């Protein structure tokens, strides 16, 4: 099969799943009280909102892939931009940080994605961790406001690392040169996104159906032990079943899927801790039913760099 045939097949399967999910959602809505007594209507409405949002998100991803590498880079640059907006909006900054924020949004973010497009791995991997790290505080210090200076600087650097640097590892997968796999890198990205995002969905479903034991209600009231184990195992099984679109053997696909699912889980967990600290439930309101963009991709931010490095050190020449 060619890459595009495989992509059509996978997207066909995902859209079919969404169709089934939508039908279930509509049925649940209709039969709410008879079918599942005790489930509040709000939960079902939220489920339907989530499913609808998935149609849009999968559609946009499909569009990006159809446009090719530049489409994917553009899509993730937008995702980064939106995430950074949400992150900084909830973070304390002061007047003296204004210029630093401008540099972050309008210089470092576009430059990072330009480096992805140019396949310049050396600078891509150090731009934000080294040059952003050193140059941005210089800009802040020129604002001559020392109130909580270290804290402000650190928070902004953290936001850039998560929202821009970590996320940019997804489209960067397109640049890896893997023997006997050329022209198929888009599938590697699909493997990462499908596995990690399905883990979120499986955790949600397992948690809603069988969740009994709360993991840590102080951080994320909806996460349960049953959801976590069921979700990660299901998503790992899905990842393993997708081995044929990757350069991995089935057992390698299983281990990699497990690693990125665990990282993805902790991505959601860590970012939830930040949300709780700021006293909010969601990062934003962009995606109906899910919250903000960062709520949707929090698991990707933690898994993408690890996945990128595993593939880069294990499979490229």
């Amino acid at each position, binding site marked *: 099969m060619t890459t595009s045939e495989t992509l059509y097949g996978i997207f066909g399967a995902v859209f079919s799943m969404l169709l089934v999910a939508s039908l279930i959602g509509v049925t649940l809505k209709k039969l709410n009280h008879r079918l599942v007594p005790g489930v509040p209507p709000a939960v079902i409405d939220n489920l339907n909102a989530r499913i609808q949002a998935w149609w849009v998100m999968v559609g946009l991803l499909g569009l990006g892939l159809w446009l090719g590498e530049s489409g994917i880079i553009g899509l993730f640059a937008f995702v980064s931009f939106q995430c950074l907006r949400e992150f900084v909006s909830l973070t304390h900054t002061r*007047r003296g940080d204004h210029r630093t*924020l401008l540099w972050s*949004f309008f210089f470092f973010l576009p430059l990072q994605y330009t480096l992805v497009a140019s396949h310049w791995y050396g600078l891509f991997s150090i731009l934000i961790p080294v040059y952003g790290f050193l140059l941005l505080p210089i800009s802040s210090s020129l604002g001559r406001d020392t109130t909580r200076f270290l804290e402000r600087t650190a928070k902004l650097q953290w936001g850039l690392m998560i929202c821009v640097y970590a996320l940019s590892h997804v489209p960067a997968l397109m640049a890896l040169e893997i023997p006997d796999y050329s022209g198929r890198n888009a599938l590697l990205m699909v493997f990462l996104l499908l596995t990690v995002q399905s883990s979120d969905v499986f955790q949600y479903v397992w948690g809603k159906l069988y969740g009994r034991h709360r993991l840590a209600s102080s951080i994320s009231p909806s996460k349960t032990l049953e959801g976590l184990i069921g979700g990660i195992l299901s998503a790992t099984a899905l990842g393993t079943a997708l081995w044929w679109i990757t350069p991995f053997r089935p057992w390698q696909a299983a281990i990699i899927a497990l690693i990125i699912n665990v990282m993805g889980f902790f991505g959601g967990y860590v970012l939830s801790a930040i949300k709780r600290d700021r006293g909010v439930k969601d990062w934003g309101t962009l995606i109906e039913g899910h919250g903000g963009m960062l709520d949707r991709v929090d698991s990707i931010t933690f898994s993408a760099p690890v996945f990128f490095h595993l593939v880069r050190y294990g499979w490229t020449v």
Partner: protein
Amino acid sequence: MSKSKTPMSGLPGFRGVVARYMAPEPFVASVLCGFARLLTGVRAVWLGCVPENQPRIYFANHSSHGDFLLIWSVLPPDLRWRTRPVAAADYWQRDALRRYLAQRVFRAVLVDRVVKHFHASPLEAMDQALHAGDSLILFPEGTRNPERGLLTFKSGLYHLAKAHPGVELVPVWIENLGRAMPKGSLIPVPLLCSLTFGSPLTFERGEGKETLLSRARKALLALEPPGD
């Protein structure tokens, strides 16, 4: 500025409809509001009331020139035409473009901040607007505040509330716009802004100036998200 000279003064009947839909101002206003919403991703939280077509004074914290536009942009269009921002004359009369925007598009009630006899003219224009059944957007701090919290309120809010006891005073907290486009900076940072509309207050009979102003100030401060 007299109200009857503007095309969107809610003229009744056919001519009013024609005036509203043929004039370019509503279009200019929609474009500006759309732009403001896009740039700020603004989210309106109607916590204590819902948008309603009745005379109200929306009073908000003031940290940016775009404040009133943001409030304006989240109001339903039919309410928007009847809601007039109170703005500083010295700023909005500086050139032809600003005069056009303030007078024809926003139908702003322009007040002179440097006038000597403060009680006479500025309140009169606001008074007339309320009498005509319009709502006002007011920044009782009187000037932009770059810090968190609120400055002390000017007394205009009290005088208007006392003269129009039936008018609802709706506190509106504007979050993040002052950070997105602070005083003296040209390029805005694309932060997400939110507006929180609190429960309306009304003037209570015999209420003193200090009591009402401090009640209003507290109601607005209660909407401020917790600092860190």
